[in-house]
């Protein structure tokens, strides 16, 4: 029969239409603006309308989500800022579009390079959010941010001040990774200490 295919197709759309309301009723008003409702709407069982009502509700981003890079700093005991970055330059070398500029500090007395940056510029309008800088940073310093709400009325260039964010923030957005890295750092420090102790013991034994 001519038109059977059309009717079949319209049946699909009708089912979708009805499903939305059935789902609404089933969730009794909790389909929107609740975390469970949002999770349901992005699951395999989602039916009907599944719009995320941004900005009132936001789709949670997964741990690995990457937007623009930022620098992690540790807070010292008195709240002082301990920058993890040592200005080694690996991130600027690995960066595919070369959007990272780093100036390494020099000791004013000796003129020798110091292990900290005086300038750190990321041109966000070149950055391709690939995450390679974070992947290869040996000091867990540069990381990819989760904050995507950074639209502005001008071009975006991040300087050192804009980039620095505390380690607590990093722990919050990437709990699993930060715990893993902290454990690795601790293990490395312990291994180093053990080695140093062994060496000390050896020199002692020799003398």
């Amino acid at each position, binding site marked *: 029969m001519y038109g059977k*295919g059309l009717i079949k197709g319209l049946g699909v*759309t009708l089912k979708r239409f009805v499903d939305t309301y059935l789902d609404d009723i089933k969730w009794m008003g909790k389909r929107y603006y609740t975390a469970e409702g949002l999770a349901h709407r*992005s*699951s395999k069982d989602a039916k009907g309308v599944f719009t995320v009502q941004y900005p009132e509700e936001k789709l949670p981003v997964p741990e690995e989500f990457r937007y623009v890079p930022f620098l992690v700093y540790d807070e010292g005991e008195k709240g002082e800022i301990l920058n993890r970055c040592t200005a080694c*330059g690996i991130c600027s070398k690995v960066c595919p579009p070369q959007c990272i500029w*780093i100036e390494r500090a020099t000791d004013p007395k000796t003129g020798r390079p110091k292990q900290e940056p005086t*300038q750190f510029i990321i041109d966000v309008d070149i950055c391709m959010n690939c995450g390679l800088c974070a992947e290869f940073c040996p000091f867990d310093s540069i990381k990819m941010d989760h904050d995507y709400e950074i639209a502005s009325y001008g071009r975006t260039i991040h300087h050192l001040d804009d980039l620095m964010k505390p380690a607590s923030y990093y722990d919050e957005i990437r709990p699993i990774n930060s715990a893993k890295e902290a454990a690795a750092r601790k293990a490395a420090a312990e291994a180093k200490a053990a080695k140093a102790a062994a060496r000390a013991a050896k020199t002692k034994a020799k003398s």
Partner: protein
Amino acid sequence: MTTLDFSTRFPEGVVADEREGYEGYIIAADKLVEFATTLRDEYGYDYLSSVTGVDYIAEETFEVVYHAYKTIGGAELVFKVQVARDKAEVPSLTDVYPGADFQEREAWDLLGIKFTGHPDLRRILLWEGFNGHPLRKDWQEAYYEADIKPFKSRWPKPEYARAEARNPYGANVKYPEKFDPEKWVPEGEDALYGSLAKYETTDDDGLKTDHLTVNLGPQHPSTHGVFRIAAKLDGETILNLKPVMGYLHRNHEKIGERNTYLQNMPFTDRLDYLSSMSNNFGYALAVEKLIGIEVPERAEYIRVIMAELTRIQNHLFAIGMFLNDIGAFFTPSLYAIEERELVLDIFEMVSGSRMMCNYFRFGGLARDLPAGSLQKIKDLVFDRLPRKTDEMDRFLSENEILRSRCVGQGLLSAEDAIKYSAAGPVLRASGVPYDIRRAAPYSIYDRFDFNVALRYNGDIYDRYIIRLDEIRESIKILQQAVEQIPEGEIQTGKPRYQMKVPAGESYGRVEGPKGELGFYLVSDGKGNPYRYHVRAPSFINLTAFGPMCKGLKIADVVAVLGSIDIVLGETDR
């Protein structure tokens, strides 16, 4: 790699390429057409996959590299022609393999190699009048900074400046002598319209009528981006048609030759931006071939899972946009995008980005699957996707309007599909069962039980329905892969950001969602590829676009284009 003995058939002019790391044959330029004809007719290499040029500036030569295959399966045959740099002329192979058409034009545009006998040798990605041929090694662009990355101006004494501020209008552009921009007339348009056909006035039915030239695009809702079609019409019937591209030419290959090997990985994401995982796959294969590194078992499985999920979401998007094109405005594409979003959620969870995954590394992957993601994939492939594919099928495939619009239109016969080097669903919808996953299995595809989706009519409808078939086959592969996936490492060796790659060449190819995606790499032993070429299926499939459209109505052109499923990022690169 195949070794054939050509010494009796060609006592002169054909020698094996014996450079370290290279393979194939070097053909004398005057023997090329004869050799190619023999290859096609006597040896069965009926499918010319890739044509590209390499600028060996130290040896003062250009080399044109051809990759040919048999559509019955098997390894590639590489043959090359070397010509002097200052007299870069190679006979065109368009008569033997019409699929070489656009690729030869590209080599002319970017490298300045002249193909004698080519029927329409114009620039293809850049515009007529552009200064120079950018892929030549001695050519520098306006914002040129250095030959290779990393740039010295980044660390430890940075000179931060925007490239355009340092060099506002690209001061190293060379203008011809006595150049007056106000009187400058770009030559391209005439050549383009001239190549279509001459204006003809006919009076067959007593009425004096003119043939009409119509441009669709570059800003047109049906062109999937910035693509232009110049068509010659008789009334509403297409007499001839030429695609015009390059509006999204992002200099992928030039940048790729400056990048280190790893830096190219995120750039490949942006080729066919709908299927970044597939692009990663192809590039990783090509580089792994060069450095000879093995991939751990678990990583292979994850790669296959990601590649097949990519195929599914790409085909969903393609179907949605195709139906948009033929006038089913938005409902089908909204349904398709809904499923795609769920696949993208998985990509985001695994790789960190919805579209630009940058997930593959040489010898493995960037990271393991995070907790919970495998369950999500299982939910999709065992439950939701099969259900929704059936729904899509029910929704559209029998629709009378769709059928009358598509069945029997835009025909491409099997012979033509092979002739024009069409690939992927376009080739298989014409009845050629050629799928690289079966014809020359890479990764671990030989372990899975699946069929090569095949349709025989070669019309628009078959090109639509074959995508649904392929989704079903991909789901089949996925169901096996998620069940079999072992525990273990995901990376061979330590991940490194810079590495030396042995000198040589390699061609890595995968069956991408749009067809054969190939990466041709030449290494000179340093940290950056010497030559980096992408065999882009969207680009080469367009070779068949003009012939397919001849005789159709102008409205059907849009449907044909939608059924080819191009992505401009890959077409123009």
